[in-house]
């Protein structure tokens, strides 16, 4: 599955029962719907774990953080594992300033994140 708007592109892939949501582009209030919808649909399928791959995100506004936080709440309440893969300063700096870096299991590669959840 893949959703594209002018600013953001979202696609998902599945490895066993781990779902990876790949996000690329700019996450702000005008583009967040694509990610919100994709993550919502994937969580509803109740995978064992979810990886949000944000390596290609060039801009993350507060609406991007909101989706991450809501995903975290839902994953916690359904006892699913959640990993966020981020390597770009655009994402890491915003997570640091908003005090959320410690709240997420941040990883720098998708295979590492998937392997942890599958273990």
């Amino acid at each position: 599955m893949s959703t594209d708007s002018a600013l953001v592109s979202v696609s998902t892939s599945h490895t066993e029962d781990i779902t990876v949501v790949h996000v690329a582009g700019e996450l702000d209030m005008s583009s967040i719907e694509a990610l919100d919808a994709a993550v919502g649909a994937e969580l509803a399928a109740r995978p064992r774990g979810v990886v949000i791959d944000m390596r290609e995100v060039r801009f993350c506004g507060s609406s991007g953080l909101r989706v991450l936080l809501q995903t975290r709440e839902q994953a916690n309440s359904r006892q699913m594992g959640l990993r966020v893969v981020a390597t770009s300063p655009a994402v890491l700096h915003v997570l640091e300033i908003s005090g959320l870096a410690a709240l997420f299991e941040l990883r720098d590669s998708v295979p590492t994140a998937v392997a942890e959840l599958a273990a």
Partner: protein
Amino acid sequence: MSGLEFVHEPAVPARILVVDDSEASRYITARWLRRSGHEVTEVDTGARALSVLRHQPFDLVLLDVRLPDISGFEVCGRIKADPATAALPVIHISATFVEPDDRAHGLTQGADGYLTEPVDPNVLLATVESALRYYRARVAAERLAHRLNQLTEASLTIYQAQSFPMLIKAVAGGASTMFDSAATVLIAASEREIRRAVITEPGQPVAIRTEPAALLDHLAAARLGNRVGSSITTMTRSEDWPDDMTVIMTRTKPDNPPICVAVPTTAVASKEDRNLLLQLGQASALAADGLRAYTEEHSLALTLQRSLLPGDVPHHPRLPVAVRYLPASMTAEIGGDFYEVTNLDGKLLVAIGDVNGHSIEAAAIMGEVRHALRAYAIEGHGPAEIIERLDAMLRRFHPAGYTTLCLLLVDPVARTVTMANAGHIPPMLIDQDGARYVESHGPLLGIGVDRPAAVEMSLPAGTTVMLMTDGLVERRGVPLGDDMERLRASMTHDEDIEALCDRLLHTYGRNKEDDIALLVFRVV
């Protein structure tokens, strides 16, 4: 179709070029044509024919096949090859008996008729009329298609207008381009005033002026009453109208003021043209309604947002404070940025924050957060405790109301500050040693996790503290850290704090998609 109207009309005068090297036959042909009212130009060579066609408009060419310089077939071929004259009907006249092959040759070269001399005057005139009829129908159809295209383009520009001045400019420009004429547009600006946009001739810029509403009221009362719909009226030249004008007045919703689009009556002579003007008027009225609704909603939201922010900032002689609040540009929705300065028994509670989202709901949550934080503060709680309580409050009542907040309790006498930051852009400290961010990042509000303890710092005299929301530094395509660093590097410790606010808004605040709140204080 206006083109078909000609079928029933007597010969309409046309501009005809007669090309013939024989003076006698040219004279006879021209005389017949002039007698039936046509305007005739005569030339005797192919070269002269092509030259005069380049400089003068014609409706039809009568072309002798045998010319002394270039053959008539060749002249016809060139007329049809030039886009400027390709549609012009050409009728060949041959002085000699011609073989059917020659006739066919002439027609395949693009000629629209072929006559052989001796030509009967009635046959000549009937052939000319027939070719003109076809030509005029084609011209009318092409003109209509062209104007429909222009209507579509004008409508797009009209629907994109984000303010009333942009809208009336777009409507006047569209009308002037479509009808290749002057244009006047009237629209209500308030109950007492209207705006008039005028283009005096095609290609000229739009002039906009404000007038009393009387003219539009009078027109509306006489032509439309309070009903929804359109009326088309002809107004004679007067001080209100620069010419005899055809005026379309349209209202799409009851009680909304109508919009008027007017062009000179001579520019909309056919029924199709008046119909196009009507469509332009209707598109304009719909766009005006949309804009009116949007403007009202936006201004209501702004008023609400304003009412939720502090009116005045308390004045403290040892701690001058400068604040700025800049709503997002007109095109964006309102946001949830806020600030607070409260005097608590000699200490100042200073806060800056941002509720996630751009909506009236975000602004309303902002109001609740601000009031709750003041309530917790007067109960004597410190910054870290207030933040704990606000976090719990948001989780209970606004689960998706994630909010960033930086809270400072300043003691201007002891020159100390207690600071707790819940996920907000860090405050900047500026003194003689330079400018630096106070890096203490607790998580934002609304998620209920453990938070770091408050930070205690001393603030020696002369220290400046700056608090801001991300609207000031966040730009698409630029890493946040880069802009924060650029901002930091631009600071000097002794810049007047009011001047500092103005400078930052001037540099960073232009046409932003987000609100900006900015608060600066200096310990003296």
